[in-house]
């Protein structure tokens, strides 16, 4: 801890300070662009750090990582496309808020939430690295499998009371994620056409499922709405909004815990943390029915925990060379290029660089928040864009974002096809979030199950491999609990609705 504080001074050099500022602004932009995920942003910047000294280069990468995870909230709230995969859960309530004209508040909440989560994640990195690094190593195939099962139980919470349709969507998402070569067996699956040979990547699926139905909906309404609401920047809403965080302390605390744990687990990133915590917040809430209709607490839940993963993902990376998230894996390249190899040396021989980097990550959280809030102040400009222009811009963003993930035109076709399918699905009241959840968690569950099964068969057998061990049992218990709670909630809401209907029928 003290070491980090001592190195805080190094950030005050003009060069480092400018890089920190530039990284934060650039990171928010990268995050807000659909398709330019934090992983992509860091990967594209690693070569630029060749020409910088190690400290400056790492400060740049760290600040971009932090801001890009948070910046995704902008597009999620304002135009209903997750700018970064981590902001999927943000749009569930963020966009409804924007539709009600509360986009500015939603973004204030998102960035203040990101700040809290980000700072807690970095504090975990500073204070708890040795015990948490050991914890990261205890996650093998069986543990990861149960974590993903726990994630899947969230479906009930994302289905808006349409449980069967939500489950159907989840299964569909998992099937979509199976397309392409099986990573474990090398067999092509569902490859009916060459376009599908490399499978359906996550980002094109995300963009297609959220952006295209959105555009088609706008198109369907375009003749109805002649005059659009004119939004003006609101004055004096910042402090009342921030003060509400006191009511949400439970969500914030749980969000940090979820984010830090998911962050250190190799193989699961901010998107999983955001969705899990969103569901927890909904279950703990006294008014779960408001979630999905513009509940600020939903935005808090998602943003706190997805930014808490950032610092936490660096814990196993810096100590063991095991990245806790895909973005951290790319950051490893940024360390290696300067001859910094993860391990004890990083905190001994290169302590100067490492602690300055961590201090930079801490300060970057505040830069990110400041820039984000400034942006939120002017977000009305985007909300005032006429629908026709908005539709065209969203389609252009969607195509560019999809194409640049793998430089593959086939992905663009897949994105449009999925979008059209989801539009028709949404007409029949199928929610889109469970499909996305299936796309994200399907591969993690499948691969870790098959890998675990292969290992178990050489050893203790599949049953005892998956059903013994503290972490396995803990996550099984959490999954069962989450499922039971979810089903109970659905049931009681259903009964309440029926009673209400019966009452109104009786009154009539």
């Amino acid at each position, binding site marked *: 801890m003290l070491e980090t504080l001592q190195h805080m001074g190094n950030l005050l050099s003009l060069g480092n300070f400018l890089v920190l500022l530039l990284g934060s602004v650039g990171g928010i932009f990268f995050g807000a662009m659909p398709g330019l995920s934090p992983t992509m942003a860091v990967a594209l910047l690693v070569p630029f750090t060749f020409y910088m000294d190690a400290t400056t280069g790492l400060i740049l990468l760290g600040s971009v990582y932090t801001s890009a995870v948070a910046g995704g909230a902008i597009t999620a709230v304002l135009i209903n496309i997750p700018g970064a995969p981590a902001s999927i859960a943000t749009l569930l309530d963020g966009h409804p808020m924007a539709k009600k004209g509360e986009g500015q508040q939603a973004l204030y909440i998102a960035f203040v939430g990101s700040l809290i989560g980000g700072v807690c994640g970095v504090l975990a990195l500073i204070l708890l690295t040795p015990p948490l690094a050991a914890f990261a190593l205890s996650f093998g195939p069986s543990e990861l499998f149960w974590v993903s099962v726990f994630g899947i139980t969230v479906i009930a919470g994302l289905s808006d009371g349409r449980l069967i349709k939500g489950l159907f969507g989840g299964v569909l998402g998992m099937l979509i994620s199976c397309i392409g070569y099986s990573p474990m067996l090398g067999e092509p699956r569902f490859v009916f056409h060459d376009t599908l*040979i490399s499978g359906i*990547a996550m980002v094109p699926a995300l963009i297609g499922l959220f952006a295209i139905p959105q555009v088609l909906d706008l198109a369907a309404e375009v003749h109805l709405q002649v005059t659009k609401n004119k939004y003006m920047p609101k004055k004096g809403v910042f402090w009342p909004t921030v003060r509400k965080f006191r009511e949400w302390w439970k969500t914030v605390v749980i969000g940090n815990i979820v984010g830090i744990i998911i962050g250190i687990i190799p193989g699961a990133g901010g998107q999983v943390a955001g969705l899990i915590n969103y569901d927890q917040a909904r279950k703990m809430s006294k008014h779960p029915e408001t979630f999905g209709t513009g509940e600020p607490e939903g935005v808090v839940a998602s943003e706190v925990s997805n930014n808490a993963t950032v610092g936490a993902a660096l814990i196993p990376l810096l100590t*063991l060379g*095991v990245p806790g998230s895909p973005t951290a894996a790319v950051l490893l390249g940024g360390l290696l290029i300067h001859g910094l190899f993860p*391990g004890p040396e990083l905190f001994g021989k290169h302590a100067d660089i490492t602690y300055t980097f961590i201090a930079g990550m801490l300060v970057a959280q505040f830069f990110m928040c400041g820039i984000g809030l400034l942006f939120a102040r002017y977000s009305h400009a985007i909300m005032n864009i006429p629908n026709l222009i908005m539709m065209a811009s969203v389609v252009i963003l969607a195509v560019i974002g999809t194409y640049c993930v*793998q430089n*593959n035109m086939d992905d663009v076709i897949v994105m449009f096809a999925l979008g059209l399918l989801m539009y028709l699905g949404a007409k029949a009241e199928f929610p889109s979030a469970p499909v996305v959840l299936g796309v994200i968690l399907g591969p993690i569950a499948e691969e870790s199950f098959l*890998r675990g099964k292969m290992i178990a*068969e*050489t050893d203790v057998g599949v049953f005892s491999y998956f059903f013994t061990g503290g972490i396995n049992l803990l996550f099984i218990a959490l999954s069962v609990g989450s499922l039971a709670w979810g089903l109970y909630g659905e049931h009681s809401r259903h009964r309440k609705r029926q009673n209400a209907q019966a009452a109104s029928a009786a009154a009539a």
Partner: protein
Amino acid sequence: MKKAILFCLVLLLGSVAGVAGAADPYPSSPISLIVAYTPGGATDFQARIVSMPAGEERYFGQPIVIVNKPGAGGMTAWNWCVEKGGKDGYTLVSYNMPHLIAQSIVSKPSFTADSFIPVANWGADPAVLIVPKKSPLKNVKEFVEYAKANPGKVTINGAGLYVGHHIATLQLEKAAGIKLTYIPEKGGTDAFQAVYSNKVMAGFNNLADAFRNTDNLNILAIADTKRHEFLPDVPTFQELGYDIDDASVNYRGYCFVKGVSQEAVDKAIKVAPAMFNDPMVVKKMKESGSPLKVMNNVETQKMFNSQKAKLEVLLKDLVKK
């Protein structure tokens, strides 16, 4: 009259343009390098280092832009290059051996090793046999004896299917007469994590990554024909009496798709090896712990041929019908 002047002008312009076109030596615009893996992976990372000086006059005189086309273990990119990639000399392809050949043999995609013209090789990363630090197996002899006593019970992992680590596992099984259970992981770092934490009993992994992590694991042997400068104390399998050659060594370099103009090939094979030996490239590769091995096009073609011959024998039983 006006028409005649106009005609002459057009003719003149046309001929100037024609002359300019003919005199413009290759390359006159930036070149793309197709990398078959995600940004930030070892191949991408090294490709970016070695391609950095391309813009200098003495090399290509034009920058090389990295284009990532990940998917299906590399097949997406190589298929694309052969089927749809430009043959104008402005699309370089980065190959990974033995992945490219192994996949062309097993999965029968659109490409084979003969679809490509090697330009130059920049890297060679041998596979090493690693075990967790706490493992009771301290050398290859103990490892093989244990595997003989427990056929199929020894788990060994690597970065995926039909990559160098998988090939090395197949070679070890054959050379020592043992049966192992190979666990394909998502990538090299995932495979390391499973070994550190004792989730699997052993692994084949990149030498470059393993030598940085000797705090957490023991390196038993190298699957190459000679010892490596990074690990002078680690024996090769051949020294220990197991017939495992360099078929699994992960070679990386540039190639073109067949059909590219001779002018482009001539230029690239001349400047690429010199560029890989540029002092700045050598320094950055060394600092990042990436083993550099520069080979010209003739040596690279030889390596292609010998790896192909070896892998065809080794993978005979795995070929998909």
